[in-house]
């Protein structure tokens, strides 16, 4: 087998910097072997090492009463009562999904599922946050069809319900679509497994699919650099998924964990075998010895370098108690999976890897893992928008009803039914509220409790002001959960940004992290897991808008108290909660009706936001709410219209205020919700709102077959539905 000459030039070709090369020589006291260079390049890639983000992420609030496991493991874990815990995380698979949308999105789902069951949890529900370029461009339609079918194929076949998420469109995602996949699983609080390689002498076991040549350098090259003219040639770095094997791996892992023979376990995701062995040894402060020829292989002739860097899917690395290897291997074989003892835990803090008796890698764990390079990169604040928005120059629409129809049919606000109907929303019989509303609600099996789950980010706000925009993302994700009656508990996040080596992108990132931390502290929702995706930009064409996707988990103590977004019947009183100001900056209305994106991001008072959440939780638990829906993108008019469209019950309301009518109808002031209440409960509800100091205005009544909103809107429900529901099917077939 011939290997290339290992030198600085080869290191640079691996995405390492010159200073990294010096550091490697320093750590090893010699030149690295070819496999060692591969190991350094993936371990020190942005994707695996978080070298540009780490010092900033350290500022996030990660502790709280409910937190069992914060960031640093495969996923975060929070206490949900009755001896149970929720395990959850969101992760990006952006670059692979652009290059090969079906396989890229599918393996994104597969990766996040493994992160959850690695910790001993059975995956309960998936969500995903998707961003594409303009819907009217053929390439974007191709990408969207592929991504949605990839998510559907993997999740449906694996057997985990996909219950929610979001889809949005913006020209700046044209060359860098985003695919963020989230999963939540349930585990007994005393049966959580961690990714530790403890106990020198314990066997290291490989289980799952055989290793092939797919996904090599997925993490180091594909995920850790900008797209350029060579991107198309990187298709082989995208992995290929096998959801049936993943399902068998889940069942086998949960069965093996029950034996008590498992000491630690980690999935082989980004950077495969390399990353999992170094990370497991690093967490336990041990070493690992691996014999690569024992790794089950898909074909002959795979080199040690390829075995170490392959990102073949559906693989796990386990450390078992010495003497119990056979018990573990037997269970994997029962499920028709490959399993082999490939090495053992050592006590010298070095990962030593051999190939047919010859050493190929000997690298001390600490310098490469825990003490990987960290950068405090230069930031430069973006100059404020050259064209501040002057509302006086924009006339309110002469026909507000027509404007509402245009908004209902616009790609960012239209019905997502085309997407969600491709997902199995029901498997495992836990889904209480299906996708399409604010948050999905899933019952915790064996209890009366339920989890409310949402993902959210408004990239337009984040582009205008990354600090405030990120706070809005946290607030809205929490509000989505709160309108179902749940208490927001904890956060996972997927921070999608441009090239961190560009000071402006880095500034956006730092501002977003600051906003994330401040908002999570104010709302009492600690950050328990997350993922950073940099380099979402294409040479010469700029970056995506900053997109810190928030995944929020909330808890409902009584599943049957959950509140849906659509009206529940005719004759209920409709209330608007919160305050509407003259805020049109960054709104969908401005973009769709006036083709403008500027202005000021709406103000956000996080204390008022928290009061709204408390009111919603109390009102739901008292059984006062017939429906509750967040008012955000598209403003009150869209929120009210959606309550009618979700349910088939019309409404007649009058919105009062001294504002411009378009600001009243379509402005996106924060911390608002639309609720309906039985008339007999109205006074009790208003008293509760006063107690929580939440502005509360009774605006009208549900019922009828029209959407009548004063000022200026009088539409037939069916006309609105026509506009709302046909956009995606017409575009996508």
């Amino acid at each position: 087998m011939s290997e290339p000459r290992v030198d600085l030039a080869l290191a640079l070709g691996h995405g390492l910097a010159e200073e990294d090369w010096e550091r490697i020589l320093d750590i090893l006291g010699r030149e690295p072997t070819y496999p060692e260079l591969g190991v350094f390049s993936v371990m020190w890639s942005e994707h695996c090492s978080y070298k540009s983000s780490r010092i900033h992420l350290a500022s996030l609030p990660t502790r709280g009463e409910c937190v069992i496991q914060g960031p640093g493991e495969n996923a975060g874990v929070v206490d949900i009562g009755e001896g149970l815990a929720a395990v959850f995380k969101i992760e990006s698979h952006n670059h692979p999904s652009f290059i090969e949308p079906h396989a890229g999105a599918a393996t994104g789902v597969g990766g996040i599922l493994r992160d959850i069951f690695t910790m001993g949890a059975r995956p309960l529900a998936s969500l995903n946050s998707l961003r594409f370029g303009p819907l009217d461009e053929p390439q974007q339609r191709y990408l969207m069809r592929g991504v949605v079918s990839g998510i559907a194929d993997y999740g449906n076949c694996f057997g985990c319900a996909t219950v929610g998420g979001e889809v949005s469109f913006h020209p700046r995602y044209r060359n860098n679509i985003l695919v963020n996949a989230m999963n939540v699983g349930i585990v007994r609080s005393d049966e959580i497994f961690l990714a530790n390689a403890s106990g020198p002498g314990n066997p290291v076991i490989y289980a799952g699919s055989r290793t092939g040549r797919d996904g090599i350098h997925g993490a180091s090259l594909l995920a850790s650099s900008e797209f350029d003219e060579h991107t198309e040639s990187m298709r082989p770095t995208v992995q290929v998924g096998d959801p049936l094997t993943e399902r068998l791996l889940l069942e086998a892992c949960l069965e093996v964990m029950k034996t008590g023979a498992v000491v630690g376990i980690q999935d082989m995701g980004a950077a495969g075998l390399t990353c999992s062995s170094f990370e497991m040894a690093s967490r336990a402060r041990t070493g690992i010895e691996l014999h690569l020829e024992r790794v089950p292989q898909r074909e002959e002739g795979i080199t040690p370098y390829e075995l170490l860097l392959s990102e073949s899917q559906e693989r796990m690395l386990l450390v078992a108690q010495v003497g119990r290897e056979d018990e573990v291997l037997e269970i994997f074989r029962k499920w028709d999976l490959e399993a082999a003892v490939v090495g053992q835990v050592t006590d010298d803090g070095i990962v030593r890897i051999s190939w047919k008796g010859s050493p190929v890698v000997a690298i001390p764990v600490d310098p490469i893992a825990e003490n990987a390079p960290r950068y405090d990169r230069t930031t430069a604040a973006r100059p404020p928008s050259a064209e501040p928005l002057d509302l006086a120059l924009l006339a309110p629409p002469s026909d507000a009803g027509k404007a509402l129809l245009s908004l209902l049919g616009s790609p960012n606000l239209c019905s997502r039914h085309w997407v969600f109907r491709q997902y199995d929303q029901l498997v495992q019989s836990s889904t209480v509220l299906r996708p399409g509303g604010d948050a999905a609600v899933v019952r915790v099996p064996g209890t009366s409790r339920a989890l409310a789950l949402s993902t959210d980010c408004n990239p337009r706000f984040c582009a205008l002001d990354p600090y405030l925009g990120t706070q809005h993302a946290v607030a809205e994700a929490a509000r989505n959960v709160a309108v179902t009656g749940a208490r927001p508990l904890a956060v996972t996040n997927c921070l999608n940004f441009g090239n961190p080596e560009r000071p402006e992108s880095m500034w956006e990132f730092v501002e977003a992290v600051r906003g994330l931390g401040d908002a999570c502290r104010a709302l009492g929702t600690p950050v328990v897991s997350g993922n950073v995706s940099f380099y979402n930009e294409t040479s010469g064409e700029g970056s995506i808008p900053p997109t810190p996707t928030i995944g929020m988990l909330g808890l409902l103590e009584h599943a049957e108290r959950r509140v849906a977004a659509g009206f529940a019947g005719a004759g209920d009183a409709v209330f608007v909660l919160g305050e509407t100001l003259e805020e049109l900056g960054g709104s969908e209305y401005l973009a769709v009706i006036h083709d403008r994106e500027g202005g000021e991001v709406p103000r956000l008072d996080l204390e008022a936001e928290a009061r709204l959440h408390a009111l919603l939780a109390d009102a739901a638990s008292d059984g006062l709410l017939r429906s509750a829906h967040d008012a955000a993108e598209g403003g009150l008019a869209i929120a009210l219209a959606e309550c009618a469209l979700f349910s088939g019950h019309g409404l007649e309301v009058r919105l009062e205020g001294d504002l411009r009518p378009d600001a009243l109808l379509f402005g996106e002031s924060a911390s608002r919700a639309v609720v309906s209440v039985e008339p007999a409960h109205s006074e009790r509800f208003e008293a509760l709102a006063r107690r929580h100091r939440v502005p509360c205005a009774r605006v009208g009544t549900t019922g009828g077959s029209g959407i009548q909103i004063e000022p200026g809107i009088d539409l037939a429900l069916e006309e609105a539905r026509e506009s709302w529901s046909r956009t995606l099917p017409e575009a996508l077939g």
Partner: protein
Amino acid sequence: MPRVGVLVFPGSNDDRDLLQALAERGADAVPVWHKDRGLPEGLAGVAIPGGFSYGDYLRCGAMARFSPVMPAVEALAGAGRPVLGICNGFQILCESGLLPGALVRNRELRFLCDDVRVRPEDGGRFALDGDDLLLPIKHGEGAYVPDPERPPRVAFRYLGENPNGTTDMIAGVVSDAGNVLGLMPHPEHAVDARLGSGSADGARVLDAFLGACLAGSA
């Protein structure tokens, strides 16, 4: 109540939901592993759950019909005992010849998860009343194509729009002898109106299966 078996193939995703739904309706429901060569003692009937047996990488149900457990299921059906196949279970029953016809890809070539109304017609040995049912469907290959040589006894037809391009709105069929029932909608996901599809109509289908099991092979 009767003892019934629920087959478990690699990739049978709805097996646990079906076991639970049958147990909640009083059945002694036991999982049966696909590698077993026989069925447990004393089974009054067998149900084949939805999911993606063997990943359905080849053609839905095409691999599962060759599982070691299937000859015993065919013998049970031959003896006149009730066999119920839901979604992937329906596909497996067609592949194995226990039901006539075949299920092909949906008209739009996409997976489809939605709620549908179906009307019971000829339930054979499964005593279904005539009321319409609201049930969820979730499948990629649910368009029924009849075998011209063996026209089916139609157990269920979709109402409203044809969801997947199925022939004559067929949603489920029953065997000539009336003891094997296959349907694409998922009764096990509609037994608790507080959940997803807001319907408990699926209980009527499961009760009809258990009723047929109780009645024995007469």
